[in-house]
């Protein structure tokens, strides 16, 4: 078969990912970000490594040394997860690392809760769902994991969720944000219905939508819609709301990229 000479390949295509790769390895970058406290460091490191058993062991050691279980959620688990999300945002580590870290962090939170009667205070509550008629939920699962990893309480309604069930959950849970994902153009239409029924009830919360065939033009058609191009946008939208940007137009200004 025909082939290209090695020196000709760069004129055909450019491997920008190879050309721009960071010098530092992920482990080295993480090491720079870990907190120095000798009780917190092993928790953060175990979160980064996604090792659930190590997280629990490190938490136990911190509790034995006098740290309060509930305080450890914010001071150790969230700090460790902060390292992970920062490295992900900077393109140093990839999504599976984040998912495994999120699993480890949830195991850590469960452990902390089991060691006390105190109740932790989440950063905010988010209801997540996959559009009615749509059973493709891997995007929603990523969104939910990333939100949890960033300290949000997630009410996960699952997939193929009837519109009325979404509305009922929002009324009951009173979240700061609702997310909707869909793979298909034929099912994403349910988002508009959710939007209209929320407005009928006078509920005006940001409704972050994305996935598959969902696009910015479509999401812009309904009043509460904020388009998230990537799953990683969900915690960023939530962060913006927590920071005070509750107005949909302002959120669109920040997150609508096209």
């Amino acid at each position: 078969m025909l082939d290209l000479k090695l020196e000709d390949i760069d004129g055909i295509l450019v491997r920008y990912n190879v050309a721009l790769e960071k010098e530092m390895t992920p482990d080295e970058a993480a090491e720079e970000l870990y907190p120095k406290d000798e009780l917190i460091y092993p928790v953060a490191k175990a979160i980064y490594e996604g090792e659930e058993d190590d997280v629990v062991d490190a938490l136990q050691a911190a509790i034995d040394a006098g740290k309060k279980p509930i305080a450890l959620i914010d001071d150790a688990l969230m700090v460790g997860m902060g390292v992970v999300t920062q490295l992900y945002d900077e393109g140093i580590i990839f999504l599976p690392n984040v998912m495994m870290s999120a699993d480890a962090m949830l195991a850590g939170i469960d452990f902390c809760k089991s060691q006390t009667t105190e109740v932790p205070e989440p950063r905010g509550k988010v209801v997540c769902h996959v559009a009615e008629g749509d059973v493709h939920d891997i995007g929603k699962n990523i969104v939910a994991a990333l939100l949890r990893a960033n300290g949000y309480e997630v009410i996960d309604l699952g997939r193929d969720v009837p519109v009325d069930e979404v509305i009922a959950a929002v009324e009951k849970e009173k979240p700061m944000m609702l997310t909707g994902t869909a793979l298909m153009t034929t099912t994403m239409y349910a988002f508009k219905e959710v939007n209209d029924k929320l407005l009928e009830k006078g509920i005006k919360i940001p409704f972050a939508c994305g996935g598959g065939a969902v696009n910015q033009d479509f999401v812009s058609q309904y009043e509460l819609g904020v388009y998230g191009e990537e799953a990683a946008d969900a915690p960023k939208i939530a962060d913006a709301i927590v920071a005070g940007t509750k107005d949909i137009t302002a959120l669109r200004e920040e997150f609508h990229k096209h």
Partner: protein
Amino acid sequence: MVKKYTSMAYANADELIFGNSKFPVKAGLGLEIGAGYTTPEVNYAPRPGAGASKEKLIKEYERITTDIMARMVQIGAPSVVLETEHVQQMSNNPTWGGAVAHAQKTIMEEYHDEYGIKCALRHTIGDIREDRDYLQLRGDKYSTFMEAFEEVANNGADLLAVESMGGKEVFDYSILRNDTAGILFGIGVLGSMDMEMVWSDIADVAKKTGTVASGDTDCAQANTAMFIAGGLLDKNLAHTTAIVARAISAARSLCAYEAGAVGPGKDCGYENSIIKSIAGVPIAQEGKTSTCAHSDLMGNIVMQCCDLWSNESVEYHGEFGGTTVQCWSETLAYDCSMMNVALKTGKAKDLRDILVLSDKYRDPQGYVLAYDNAYKVGQAIAKDGENNYLRSKNAAIECCNIIEEGTNSGKLRLTRFETNALAKVKADLEALTDDADKFMSDNLTKFKQEVAVFKLENYGL
């Protein structure tokens, strides 16, 4: 009756070429697929809201069909395939699917009668075998699922297809956790088991109705990996991991042909070049012409040995140049015209190699799917063709070896992250048992514990 492939259809990789397959398929109105020419296959989705009623849906597909056929005649295209991927209403209500097929075929017959244009209608049934929380592969919905095939076959569809989802619950969990054994188990073992059941039954429907059991695609799994992997700068999944999932998917999608399908394989099955090398069936592919639906890093290379050239799917609406289906069918038809000229002038292999080289070193995915390497993956599958697990594992290991050869040549360049991910996958694979029963038993135990939605009854276990 499932008869496994243990040898290659082609004596060598160089025989793989677009427009020609070892076993061409006659279908529809005067069309023969893989018989010396390529044909555009146009795929479309109705506008949101068009599925509100049966009547609205039929009308939408009538407009789509007329638009495509009219444009094909206007530009002098000799042949076309229309692919209708069912919206859920059409598969959940089989008579809807049947009515749409009938309406479409009526229009296609009119064009065929008047202009002689060769054409065929593919209907891809939605894999509706699930309830809200779980896959329900063998449950109550199975009879509706099969009825959907029968209805479209009895009402004008020529080619029957599906994008089946067996193993997806384990795969979705595993791909997000870099769990190599889980990826292999989901696609290569569970996916293959489900494929053998589904395609034996679809082949029976095709036989009974005089239609063609065409083929499947591992869209639900390997394409999920490809989409999560994304472009060069995306950081969601190593592209080396994504192509290992793809190599495994060839062993899985091959099961359709072992159970009685004859091709053409489905367009979004990027594993189809591997399958063609083993089974000799005609295949549909999509590349640069599917940018209306998604981006990939293999825009030209996948054209290398296609028999149908597709656009994946485009929502029906207006563009400056006509409706979307008119614009995209025209683009496809001109691509096919180019390939057909190359075939007639003895330049097909040159064109094929140019298409391949424009993408081969862009990404490890294209590198492994280049026909010379795809053939090697095919050989690894056929070597242990009788055993779904071993052949999937072989495909994955061969894929790793091919990438290593590419990087050793200096022509395929990987990031350190991709290199490390590849090393991990390869080490994971080499640590796996050669005993299929043990692999099954170990992974059943593991995933029953870890994946709440994994139900053994879906696989007859």
